[in-house]
């Protein structure tokens, strides 16, 4: 009876779009670092943590006002608690497991037992609860519990929470993890020497040295000495003890330099990768960006014209020299092979509008890059460069949205300038965006008042604008000079020409009346 009800609820949840939307939203905000709005939550959390720790420090010498205490104990803890519960909730989907089990049971004609899915989900949730970051989260909430007020020091666990919200610390840990083997070996060696030397000093001096009374004192001395810290509160008094000291001092120096070099080399090996990851993270925060493949003449030209910083971009080239040059020229560049699946998939393919410019000088490579991008997502727009007309077809088969033939473009310009000189100037003026003939594309969607309006009802003439036509949807057809009865739809794009100010005025008018 109960199980039936639960299955029903599970199905209802599974069917509910709203539930899914909400859950996806929280998942994105909490766990998906590609999500645009995650950074706001991150900043808020960092702020809460820092203020909380600040209060802890302030409290040591000053009496804390009531509001501060309330803020620290209740508000911050409450937010942390909510966060903890949300993370617990989005970690996995109970209803999906129930449905899966239920359907399997129906299929196999065996009785449906609620405890199977519950056990599975519990296992996964427990696994989450005992994960290090979840434990830290839990400990960070604890100071709110009054009887545990003595454990004010638990507030310090909130500092550990920073780990979750700051990438650099995570990266540091990741880098060290790559040298796990070396570091563990050294740690083991360190423990071994500390241990032996500790026992030795204990045996030699326990009776003679008033400072060493327990084995713990001996280990403490040993570690302080081997780490070259040497407080001097305990020092050997016998010949034998001094000999042991000399031995561990030397081995200590050797070991410290060894550890340092291991960490440094781990970083220098990973430095480029870290930098590149940083570039990718940065660019992934944008809604639209361009990935430029290949740093050659054309890319240089393209970037040189990109003065206004209209688009955010990143250059990918597999040639180390060229990447170095690009970085030297002040561009964001990554030394990777853009035709590899895992390289492009690092970018925020799901949420951002990505345009790939495939501008290397090899057709084969350009086609491969295009195919690679398109295979990841059809949404990625690809503009590729081809050497000649015969290649164009292949590029189009590969799904390239726009094939650029540099020779053809130049030829076309040359021919137009000679065959149709008047038009050449006109087109040139239009394309370079000269003031008189500014051509602009107005998306109906952005100017709400245009939706469902008849073309005849819009007085373009009074704005001194020439209305050329509409593009019906991004992939749709272009309608030149549509009839006055045509009704504008949301996905339409108007093509207008006129003085820049006329078009600005037109846009402004429609935006304002919309608001």
């Amino acid at each position, binding site marked *: 009876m109960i199980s039936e009800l639960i299955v029903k609820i599970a199905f209802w949840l599974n069917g509910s779009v709203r539930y899914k939307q909400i859950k996806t939203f929280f998942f994105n905000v909490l766990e998906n670092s590609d999500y645009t709005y995650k950074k706001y939550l991150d900043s808020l959390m960092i702020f809460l943590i820092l203020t909380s720790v600040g209060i802890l420090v302030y409290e040591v010498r000053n009496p804390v006002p009531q509001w501060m205490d309330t803020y620290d104990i209740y508000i911050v803890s409450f937010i942390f608690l909510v966060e903890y519960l949300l993370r617990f909730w989005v970690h996995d989907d109970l209803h999906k497991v129930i449905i899966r089990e239920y359907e399997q049971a129906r299929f196999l004609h065996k009785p449906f037992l609620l405890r199977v899915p519950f056990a599975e989900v519990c296992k996964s949730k427990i696994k989450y609860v005992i994960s290090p970051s979840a434990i830290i989260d839990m400990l960070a909430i604890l100071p709110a519990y009054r009887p545990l007020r003595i454990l004010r020091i638990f507030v310090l666990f909130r500092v550990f929470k920073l780990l979750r919200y700051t990438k650099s610390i995570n990266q540091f840990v990741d880098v060290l993890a790559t040298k796990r083997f070396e570091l563990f070996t050294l740690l083991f060696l360190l423990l071994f020497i500390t241990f032996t030397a500790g026992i030795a000093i204990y045996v030699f001096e326990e009776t003679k040295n008033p400072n060493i009374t327990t084995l713990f004192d001996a280990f403490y001395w040993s570690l302080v000495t081997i780490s070259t810290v040497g407080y001097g509160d305990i020092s050997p008094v016998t010949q034998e003890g001094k000999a042991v000291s000399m031995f561990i001092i030397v081995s200590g120096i050797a070991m410290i330099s060894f550890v340092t070099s291991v960490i440094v080399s781990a970083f220098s090996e990973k430095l480029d990768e870290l930098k590149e990851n940083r570039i990718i993270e940065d660019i992934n925060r944008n809604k639209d960006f361009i990935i430029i493949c290949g740093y050659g003449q054309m890319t240089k030209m393209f970037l040189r014209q990109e003065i206004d910083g209209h688009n955010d971009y990143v250059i990918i080239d597999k040639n180390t020299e060229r990447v170095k040059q690009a970085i030297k020229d002040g561009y964001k560049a990554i030394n990777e092979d853009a035709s590899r699946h895992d390289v492009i998939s690092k970018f925020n393919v799901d949420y951002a509008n990505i345009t790939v410019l495939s501008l290397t000088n090899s057709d084969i490579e350009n086609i491969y890059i295009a195919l690679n991008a398109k295979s990841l997502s059809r949404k990625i727009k690809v503009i590729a460069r081809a050497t000649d007309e015969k290649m164009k077809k292949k590029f189009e088969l590969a799904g390239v949205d726009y094939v650029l033939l540099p020779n053809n473009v130049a030829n076309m310009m040359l*021919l137009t300038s*000679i065959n149709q000189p008047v038009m050449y100037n006109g087109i040139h003026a239009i394309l370079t965006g000269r003031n008189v003939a500014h051509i602009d594309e107005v998306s109906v969607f952005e100017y709400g008042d245009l939706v469902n309006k008849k073309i005849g009802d819009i007085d373009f003439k009074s704005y001194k604008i020439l209305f050329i036509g509409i593009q019906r949807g991004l992939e749709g057809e272009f309608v030149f000079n549509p009839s006055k009865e045509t009704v504008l739809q949301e996905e339409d794009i108007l093509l207008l020409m006129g*003085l820049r100010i006329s078009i600005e005025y037109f846009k402004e008018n429609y935006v304002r009346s919309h608001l």
Partner: protein
Amino acid sequence: MRKSAFVFGYGRRGSSFAKGLKTDDYHLYIVENREEEYEKAKSDGYIDVVYLDVTKDEELESLPMSNQSYIICVMEDEHLNVFLTLSLRALFPHATIVAISDSIHVTQKLKMAGASKVIDLYQVSANRIHNILRKPVATKLLDSFISNDYAISFREIEIPLGSCLDGVMANDIDFSSHGVLLLGMIDVELSHKFIFITSGIQHKLDEGDTIVCIGYNEDLDRFEAKIKEIKEGQQQ
């Protein structure tokens, strides 16, 4: 009189350029200094193909070239191309010399050598990418004007004497019912500059002015015929 156009170099660029040039408007000469390309140009059906050493001024002078000629330098060898531009400029100080370059440095050298217009392969391509990214619809439309495989195009129509458009204010006319849009005009009275309709200047059309319209080719044909037809009617 037809103008003459000289294409220097019949390599990859030169050949596709020559193919695209409207031969009814220009008398086309092809000049080559390589035997193989010279033969190829001939076998492609060009009549005026000249084989000569472009580094020698005497040989260049022997060409029927004048200050009114169009000279297109598209030699494969960029050094030769720059040198040729320089020699031609020295010989014909007022001729229009156009050259294609494929790097910033060559562009600069060609300009210094005296080319009137240098089309930088990468620059125009980069420009194009910008346009595709920012104004995809407009770019598509403008492309179709240039290439002849699309039905919409530009048309320059000269207003004949007594036409229905003679003496009309440009802003008052609405051609859209004819399926044609008025983009601008070239006024003989003012200057020979192209004036965009959207510049907002009140302008009266006169006989001899050239209007530039865009539209489907059929509509443009009909429209042009209409202007001329009325003219005949008035004359009768």
